[in-house]
């Protein structure tokens, strides 16, 4: 033991830090088609109460994402790819996504659901928090850092509730957004048609959303 202590530091068996790809693998979804529920809480400086919302979602790597907010408003974001993404309200009105919503959806959120390792390695500094319970993503682009400070993502396993994912976004102005994705249901399906049928099954009353995802260029 004494001799061990005399060995040069670099020869000592230090705990090896996981690399970025390994860290990302820990937080990325294991499947390609899944649905679930989300709840979101935002703390905005200057706004006296936290803003909470919740809803459900469906993601398919063949089709895209339906992000359906139920409370306090009934509306959905339909995301196919970076050039086709829409917001739809309870009245069925469809409008293309613009501004920061589109930016965050295109560049961060959908890529997170998709498990885009290359993108996150290129654009973010990836590390673990001090307790090794969450993965911290810090944007490398200085301009993005003007708005976005960090994203903290952790995966939780619960015997009763199953897997849930916590995404905490801290922007440069001190605004917190916490999103928890839970009740995740994986689907073993293949191909766009099967993904579409699954979407219709989940959103039977608003199946036109699935239609938008299947044929975005028509809208």
């Amino acid at each position: 033991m004494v001799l061990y202590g005399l060995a040069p530091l670099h020869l000592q068996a230090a705990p090896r830090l996981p690399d970025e790809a390994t860290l990302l693998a820990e937080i990325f979804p294991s499947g390609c088609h899944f649905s679930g529920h989300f709840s979101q809480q935002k703390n905005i400086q200057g706004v006296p109460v936290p803003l909470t919302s919740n809803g459900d979602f469906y993601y398919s790597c063949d089709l895209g994402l339906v992000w359906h907010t139920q409370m306090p408003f009934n509306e959905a974001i339909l995301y196919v790819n970076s050039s086709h993404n829409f917001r739809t309200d309870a009245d069925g009105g469809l409008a293309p996504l613009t501004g920061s919503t589109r930016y965050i959806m295109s560049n961060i959120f959908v890529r997170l659901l998709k498990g885009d390792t290359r993108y996150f390695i290129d654009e973010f500094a990836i590390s673990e928090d001090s307790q090794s319970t969450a993965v911290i993503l810090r944007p490398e682009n200085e301009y993005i850092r003007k708005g976005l400070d960090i994203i903290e993502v952790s995966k939780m396993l619960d015997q009763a509730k199953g897997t849930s994912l916590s995404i905490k976004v801290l922007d440069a102005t001190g605004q917190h957004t916490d999103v928890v994705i839970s009740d995740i249901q994986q689907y073993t399906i293949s191909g766009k048609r099967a993904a579409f049928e699954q979407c219709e099954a989940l959103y039977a009353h608003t199946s036109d959303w699935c239609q938008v995802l299947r044929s975005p260029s028509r809208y």
Partner: protein
Amino acid sequence: MKPLLLPLTFILAVIISAVLFVLNAQHLQIDTNLNDLNPTQINEPGLKKAIDTLTTDISQRFVVVIKGDDKAAIAASKAALQEKLNALPELNVIAEEAVQNSFLNIISAYRFYLLSADQRQSLASNSPQQIADQALRKLYQIGDGVRLIPFEQDPLGWFSDYLLTSLDSQTMPFQTSPSGTESEATSFSVMFSTFPKGMSAQQTLYSRIQAAETQVSQQFNVTVLRSGMFFFAVDSAQSAKSDIQLIAVGSVAGVLLLMMLVFRSLLPLFLSISSIAIGVGFGVLSSTLVFGSIHVLTIVFGASLIGIVVDYSLHYFYHYLAHRQASGPAHSGVLFRAMLLSVITSLVGYGALGLSDLLILKKIALFSCSGLAMAWLSVMLLGPLVVRRPIEARQSLLKHIIHGCQRIFARRPRVLVITGLFITIGCGGYMLVGNTKTNDDPRRFFHVSEALLSQELAIADLTQVYEPGRYLLIQGETPEAIFTALNAVTTAEGVAPQAISSVADYLPSPHQQLNNYTLQKKLYEEGGALDRFVAAIGLAPRISDQVKRDFKLAAQTPPLHFDDLENQLPSLPPLWFEQDNLIYSFALIRKGSDLPAIEAASKNITSVEYVNTLANASNALKAQRETGTKLLLLAYGLIALLVAVYYRNLSTVVLLLIPASASFIAIALVSATGHSINVFHIMALFLVLGLGMDYIIFAKEMASHPETTQQAILLSAVTSLLSFGLLAFSSMPIVQSFGSIILIGNTINFIAAISLFNNTQNTHEKGCYGG
């Protein structure tokens, strides 16, 4: 005493000039600007200034890319290299973060003037209540997580949305990070705070940059690449420096050796060396006085002047040797006439270079003509002092060489002439049937080191977002006209809006900004969207009151103009230039854009010009080559006239067939060896004419003393061929082009001069020395 007055005055003037020259040597600047090779003529002063500003800006920046496998090492190496480069007083690393902060700070103050197209649409079609509802809903959305300025300043989030929309469409100016590479990479830009003047200072800085890169590269195990005009200029200057050393040392050594071997006396050597020094010195002086500096390529070409300048002393000595018994005004008159004709033909040859639109050729013409004239003057004034003491020429070796040449070429002069003409016709035919290739691509004029070129290509792959050498030039009398023209291009058929990067990516037009302000009244006026939003969310009224106050105050500030933005952010590219009530704006074209569509669109808009610098330069160089050929014919015509008038005999015009044949053969030979003909080959033909006529006149004038004449011609040819032969072995293709043509052409001139003027029949009464 009287005959000494002029030479002594001349010596005194030369000494004073030399002293002044040495005292001011620190002000002598060697210019390495490669733009001197660009023949594109811009006559409009404002446009010229705008393009010069852009070119200067580009030449005073460089990009550094760091590649490696470890992101942490790359980040650390970037910081270390930036620190090292910033420590160099001439350099200033552009701190992207500081630039972005400044940009954000500047435009934040104008946020009520800024709207995206979608936002304008939304304001036009929605009521304040709808807008307030949308803002409220967006607060809950996952995407509304990014705010670039605090919530209190932008509660509705419209300014953050505006900036992020710009970022999303990748039109913001700060997207410089390399992407899509297998290994990790980062980049940053460096500007020159003070651009090093002169070759030596540039080389020192170049070495320091290299040392910093090597150190960082080794310390962090990363690859450092860099790209910028500065490195090409220094590299070219280094090649030129080697050429100058080779040519100058080779020529001077050759001249010294020859003069010592032939005359074995210091006096003739002194006159030759003095005339070279005076000629080259005056060339440098006149170039500096006229152009403010001396270009490195002028020195390369100028070094070859040594071989021509020394001819005057040789001519002088051999005239003296041929007529040492003769004296008096008749002899002096003949000597003067022969020397004058000789210098005029050379001046015509070199002076013709000045007719080119290429600045570098104008500089060479001035350097050479002033140098030649002064060298000639020095020989004419100092020559009588030198020959006061008898000089002797060792002629046996020269005679052997000449007889050897004559045994081959001069046995049957008529056969030589007919053979020469046949070869010339053959070469003409070879050129006529299209075997002669031409290439006017200016990139082929330089020798660039492989390492530098591969770095440039690697960096272009990693970072270059825009089409190199292509841009749009927009002219207008008002900012509005510029923005309208830009809008016309980006909305033209087949042109993707993102294809063009211009001032419109930074700001809307002033008129549009005022419109945006008016539109935003729906947000910030009493009872507007902000008031409704604040009421719905339960915000403290002070927040909305402050925003509304800011909105009203903003109306007192005029819209933001790009030149104001540029003044506050000097690291922005100079895309906007105003002069004499005219605005010139540059727009860059993104890589992979539909270039024919952009070119077609710009043709339909009068104020927009599609500029392809490489194509323009190539076309201009082609025009130069073609004009050069016509001017060459004109020079032949003028010299023919001069010769015919001087000898009062029209048949003497056939003498011009000698340099003409030499030119045809030289071009055909160069072409046959796989080289493409360019403007520099054509310009060299002027010297083939000038030097050829020089020999012919000398041979004809002294045909009564063929042996002496031929020795003089041999010596003269050897010195010229030595200088120009050394040019042919230059590492720089343009210098090579020049040297190779003169080497071949002048060899033929020499053979003709010693082979065709061997008997007294050639002697014309005007050139006869009575021997």
